[in-house]
């Protein structure tokens, strides 16, 4: 059977793919007007009520925070500071997170290093949804927090917290590796307060 190169017959035509992509972006843009709250905000209230964690909780939290594996999802230039933090000088392997996972199913942490455009937003949301629970997000850099200098642009998401719930914000343009490591340490202390066992 000869292949018709001039008019390729896929299941979906190119026009269909373009239209579907455009509709998905428009739908996400319409729905993402509110800031998604941090799901772990209850931690602060619980601490005020002095609720103690069980010893099993502390072991689970220790295991989880000691091997945070980041997903590879670096849309823009903050990625280089993340790479610098990961390289030998700052050495993220001290925290057990030197392995970057290409598959989001094997990752715990999403470091949103860079400006996010609306065209890229459905893919980032999809990567977040593919990550297995429990999962955390660090918003790295001015663009990740609020859109930065591109906030009023026609094509930039004004902060990742419109798309995914964010746990820790690391300001800077870009933040130095020290700042990122401080943010990671804050996330560690947040994970260590997490209650896994109800009762």
């Amino acid at each position, binding site marked *: 059977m000869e292949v018709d190169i001039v008019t390729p017959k896929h299941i979906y035509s190119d026009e269909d793919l*373009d239209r579907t*992509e*455009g509709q998905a972006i428009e739908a996400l843009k319409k729905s993402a007007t509110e800031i998604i709250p941090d799901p772990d905000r209850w931690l602060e209230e619980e601490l005020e009520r002095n609720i103690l964690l069980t010893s099993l909780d502390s072991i689970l939290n220790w295991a989880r925070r000691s091997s945070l594996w980041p997903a590879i999802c670096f849309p823009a230039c903050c990625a280089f500071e993340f790479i610098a933090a990961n390289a030998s000088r700052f050495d993220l392997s001290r925290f057990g997170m030197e392995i970057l996972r290409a598959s989001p199913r094997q990752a715990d942490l999403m470091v949103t290093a860079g400006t996010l455009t*609306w*065209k890229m937003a459905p893919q980032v949301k999809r990567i977040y949804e593919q990550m297995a629970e429990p999962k955390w997000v660090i918003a790295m850099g001015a663009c990740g927090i609020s859109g930065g200098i591109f906030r009023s642009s*026609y*094509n930039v998401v004004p902060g990742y917290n419109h798309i995914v719930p964010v746990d820790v914000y690391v300001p800077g343009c870009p933040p130095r590796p020290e700042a990122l490591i401080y943010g990671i340490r804050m996330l560690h202390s947040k994970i260590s307060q997490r209650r896994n066992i109800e009762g």
Partner: protein
Amino acid sequence: MILALSGKEVAAELEQNFPGSVVESGENSILVKSESVFAIAEYLKNTPELDFSYLTHISAVDYYNYFELVYQLISIQHKHSLVIKTRCYDRQNPVIPSVVKLWRGADFQEREIYDLMGVSFEGHPNLKRIALWQGFEGHPLRKDYL
């Protein structure tokens, strides 16, 4: 080193072959009519003495009254360069002939100009948005956008 050809000298040659197509010629560039862009580009590419085999880039400028397209050409063999400009006065539906048939590198650049500036290219094989998504309203690099 690449030598920039004098626009006036090349314009005189173009005027002989395509009478009435050159609007204006300076030391740095030649302004041609938008209908004759393709014919002039074909001539510049296929004449052995000129041999502009490489299109560096196309840029589009919004001057409120008209859109101006700037074609930067280079001859790799003769090591000389030339700048061709053309204008499109229709703001509602600007159309310029496409040069993709001559330089394949023009493909994505013309799509980008169509996407962000709203200039249509007649004869382009796949003219659709490249940086923004289908269904986006308006052309953001126009001066009257927002």
